[in-house]
């Protein structure tokens, strides 16, 4: 059975999470005294003439060779004991119980490359440890992100670097993923590692600021959404309004088609404009929106400091 992103089987979230915890407790109880080693039966087949023989061999895995964090080890073992169906249900349960990521953080630099679905990850430091946030538009992919985040949050960047992607084989998940999704998973882990190092170098609290401005992504308005996210992240405005004026310019030569998103007006209030001339303020905005300026025809800017805005 290949895992696809449509979860046809629905199980109550509470039930699925309960199942996960029961599995983990069972595993913990059963393995008291044998914490670091587990025999995992693998089978190999050889065909001689018309006869096919199945041989059983066992492979010892231990958490130190895979560099697993304690939590990741627990989660992997729990998943190992499940059947396909239960694994899928648990991934979906992890997905829905994961704390949602705020839209304004969904920047290109937070997007996992090489993933079939759209996946965002974000990391910050708290009390000397790295914590993660993640999101995806596809539930099963979101479950994989949630699994990694659940397993690695609260660890040091060094511990996170040590995690070997091979653990996904032992957790029994790899066999259920298509090559494309496997590749996506490797990219997710790689990005989480990179984000962990960046978070550590940025230091305590960085990346945890809540913006003063509310923002909801609008898939139907990609240019607008992209501009808003960048302005919020880089200029940290106290107030921000961006209006699509394209309809007003629909007739003239510069307007681009009927889709709108060609002419905008922006009203922004931020501390960063302090001491800057009008030209410097507008240039700052143009620099932040350099990529979008290539697509839009006109941007009208009203940039004030909080004192000026009143």
């Amino acid at each position, binding site marked *: 059975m290949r895992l696809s992103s449509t979860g046809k089987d629905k199980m109550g979230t509470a039930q699925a999470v309960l199942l996960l915890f029961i599995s983990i407790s069972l595993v913990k109880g059963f393995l008291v005294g044998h914490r670091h080693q587990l025999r995992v039966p693998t089978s190999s087949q050889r065909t001689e003439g018309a006869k096919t023989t199945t041989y059983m061999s066992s492979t010892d895995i231990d958490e130190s060779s895979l560099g697993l964090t304690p939590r990741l080890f627990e989660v992997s073992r729990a998943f190992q004991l499940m059947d396909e169906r239960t694994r899928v249900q648990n991934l979906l349960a992890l997905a829905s119980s994961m704390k949602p990521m705020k839209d304004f953080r969904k920047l290109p630099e937070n997007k996992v490359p090489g993933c079939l679905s759209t996946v965002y990850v974000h990391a910050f430091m708290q009390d000397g440890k790295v914590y993660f946030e993640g999101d995806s538009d596809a539930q099963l992919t979101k479950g994989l992100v949630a699994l990694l985040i659940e397993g690695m949050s609260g660890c040091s960047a060094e511990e996170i670097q040590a995690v070997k992607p091979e653990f996904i084989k032992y957790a029994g998940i790899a066999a259920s993923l298509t090559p494309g999704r496997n590749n996506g998973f490797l990219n997710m882990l790689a990005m989480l590692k990179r984000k962990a190092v960046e978070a550590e170098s940025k230091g305590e609290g960085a990346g945890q600021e809540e913006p003063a401005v509310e923002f909801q992504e609008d898939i139907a308005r990609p240019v607008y959404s992209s501009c808003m996210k960048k302005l919020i992240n880089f200029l940290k405005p106290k107030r921000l309004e961006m209006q699509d004026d394209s309809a007003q*310019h629909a007739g*003239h*030569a*510069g307007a681009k088609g009927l889709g709108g998103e060609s002419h905008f007006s922006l009203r922004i209030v931020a501390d960063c404009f302090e001491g800057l001339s*009008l*030209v410097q303020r*507008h*240039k700052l905005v*143009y620099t932040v929106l350099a990529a979008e*300026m290539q697509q839009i025809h*006109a*941007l*009208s*800017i*009203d940039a004030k400091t909080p004192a000026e805005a009143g």
Partner: protein
Amino acid sequence: MAPGDEAAERSAAIETIKSLVGNNKVMLFMKGSKLFPQCGFSNTAVSILRACDAEFETFDVLSDYLVREEIKNYSSWPTIPQCYVNGEFVGGSDILLEMFESGELEKTLAELKK
């Protein structure tokens, strides 16, 4: 067009920009002409300068695509219109409007007449 030709034409466009900006106290790069602006923002810029009784020259970027491209590099500014006073880039229509409303534009233009 051979690459060599384009480079030469581009240099020529940059020279045009430099001489226009250098030889005119108030220079406006716009879409359309002073009499017939082709864009709302360019129209605004022209109206404001008129309201200040300023003497100014204009260049229609729609007539020359190389100047239209190069003027954006020259000022590190992505849009048209662009207003230069005494060789210095002052802003687009938003900035001209703000400066006009605050009185700053008339003051700057009055300095020129001295």
